[in-house]
């Protein structure tokens, strides 16, 4: 299979183009997706090539736009709704829950909602507390929604394409700080990455680092650091999708290494990492040689100041420290520090 090196941004755009070409029922809706080419330039050029019937600019009216996407999906279209940020997506959370996620269940399977929501998270652009969120846990809570968190260009393309072809509603959460990352992407127009399969990014023996979204890359950096500075062999798993979750794959890795650190950029309370940590201790307790540790974003807003910004964020060193703690070679940084917030 031939591949081409391209950025994450170009890979998402390639997926959109290929699916727009393949299926007349596909259309793209969202704020600034047309004339402006997308807030992150993902949809640039689509309006010129596919016209305003298929590339539809909307106002910042997320609840209406998600509801419209849901209705159109129920009766035969394959809409891809772009919500400019995960923060803006929160305005549509009731529509996501009621009109999108629950509809197939509540109608006993009579109504399907093959809707794709593309949205973006991230906190790396020093934009202050209203524009710096990782909120995958907010949608992960909702049964009926599938949640993809691709961290590579190949996955960004393949998972979006799989989402468009799926009869289930899928939220694909892209990451601001990954748009310029380059990687090899299969040229095949039928390159699909099915949801529900984690990927091994790096093999190792001593500890498993499981990364969510951009944190999967942080985990790889941490594994390099652990090998270089501490002689620790860390296995890195990229979760790739949170629902369906590859719990079998995660447990298999834990059976090899007997230690697990889950890494996420989001807030620690009731987050994706907490959920996975709970599942692993339920399903692989006897295989664990240490408590499952979480490394999460700080339990605080992300500030504008460079110093506060850095203090709130997860980096490779924090992940490496947690891995050493899981190996009883250092103190664990507590994900939810009870001494904070006084």
């Amino acid at each position, binding site marked *: 299979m031939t591949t081409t090196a391209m950025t994450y941004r170009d890979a998402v755009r390639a997926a959109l183009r290929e699916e727009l070409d393949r299926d007349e029922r596909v259309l793209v809706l969202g704020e600034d997706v047309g004339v402006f080419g997308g807030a992150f330039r993902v949809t640039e050029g689509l309006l010129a090539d596919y016209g305003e019937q298929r590339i539809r600019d909307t106002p910042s009216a997320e609840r209406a736009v998600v509801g419209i996407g849901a*209705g159109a999906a*129920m009766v035969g*279209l394959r809409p891809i709704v772009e919500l400019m940020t995960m923060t803006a997506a929160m305005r549509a959370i009731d529509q996501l829950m009621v009109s999108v996620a629950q509809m197939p269940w509540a109608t006993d399977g009579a109504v*399907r909602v093959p809707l794709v929501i593309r949205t973006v998270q991230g906190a790396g652009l020093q934009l202050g507390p209203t524009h710096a969120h990782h909120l995958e846990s907010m949608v992960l809570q909702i049964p009926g929604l599938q949640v993809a968190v691709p961290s590579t260009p190949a996955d960004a393309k393949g998972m979006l394409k799989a989402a468009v072809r799926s009869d289930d509603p899928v939220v694909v959460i892209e990451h601001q700080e990954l748009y310029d990352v380059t990687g090899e992407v299969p040229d095949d127009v039928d390159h699909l990455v099915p949801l*529900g*399969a984690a990927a091994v990014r790096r093999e190792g023996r001593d500890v498993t680092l499981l990364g969510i979204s951009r944190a999967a890359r942080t985990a790889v950096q941490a594994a390099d650091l652990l090998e270089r500075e501490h002689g620790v062999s860390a296995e890195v798993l990229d979760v790739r999708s949170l629902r*369906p979750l590859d719990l079998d794959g995660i447990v298999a890795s834990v059976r090899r290494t007997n230690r697990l650190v889950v890494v996420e950029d989001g807030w620690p309370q009731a987050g994706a990492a907490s*959920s996975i940590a709970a599942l692993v201790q339920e399903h692989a307790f006897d295989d664990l040689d240490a408590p499952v540790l979480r490394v999460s974003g700080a339990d605080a807003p992300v500030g504008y100041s460079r110093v506060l910004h850095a203090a709130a964020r997860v980096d490779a060193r924090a992940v490496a420290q947690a891995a050493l703690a899981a190996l009883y070679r250092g103190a664990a940084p507590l994900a939810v520090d009870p001494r904070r917030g006084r």
Partner: protein
Amino acid sequence: MELVRRFDERAGELHGSGQIGGFLHLAIGEEALVVGATRALEDRDWVLSTWRSHALALARGTDCGRTMAELFGRVGGTNGGRGGAMHLTDPQRRFLGGFGLVGAHLPVAAGVALASSHQGRAEVTMAVLGDGAGCGGTLTETFDLAAMWHLPLVVVVAHERRGHTSEQDAAAAQQTLARKAEGHGVKTLACDGMDVVDTQAVCAQAVQIARTERRPVLVQASVQRAPTSGMADPKPSGTKEVLAAWKTRDPLAVFGERLVEVGLLERADRTRIQMTVNALIEQAVSWAGRCAHPDPESLYAHASAQPTDGWLAVDARGTTSPGERAPHPREVAR
């Protein structure tokens, strides 16, 4: 109208005796609106409603037994007992459902209209809602987009000047939802929602405009629901005087008398219709009562349309119990 009325009255009784659970929102007093509005549609058109959904389903032709079974929460129900009175759905009759959240179905209806329009089908989508939804932002967001995209959408507003239990005028800066719609480029019409003939005529006009001119139209239908009290659908203003005043406007009684007066119906016919309807409803109640409850094992059915390798539901009530899982043969590297 007789069927919608009698079904509601019977459902109210069954709610009182505990055979129907949850919220049961009655449409007594809205029969003319519900029947008139749906009669203005063709079979190919779509309709979405509020939580007062069983009335809409019946008016659209959904089987009385399946409707009652849904209220009973049984597998024979329109939604297999998963939705209840607020969420009835019958896609075969192009009734895409009752929505339990105020105004939530309006953008969905606009999306259905978008799909029809996008695929060149001359269908119209109708959303029936109450005026209490007019204070929510979703409505104005949707009006903007529906007008901008020339969507064939008909919004029928049960204009009662009430929002849940408060007098709506006190809550809204503007008097009517129609005025708000006009401000967003939506054409508006008005009808007497207590008069089935007027409602059908005006809604038919709205449907015609939406279908031929490809634009959203709002019909403000003035209604007054019956001031019933009781647990099924409590309304605080149900005093004897209010009830007596309402009875002079009762859309079913008024229309029945009118049909007799103009010679289209004998009084005996009216009684025969009532008896037929009663028999139909008792049959529905009896059938619904005999339907099975859903199997608890079906809780996770329809978690996804397509099979997946991953875990869609992760709690202990899933098909796998904690600690009982065999070691997974699959290696992670793939």
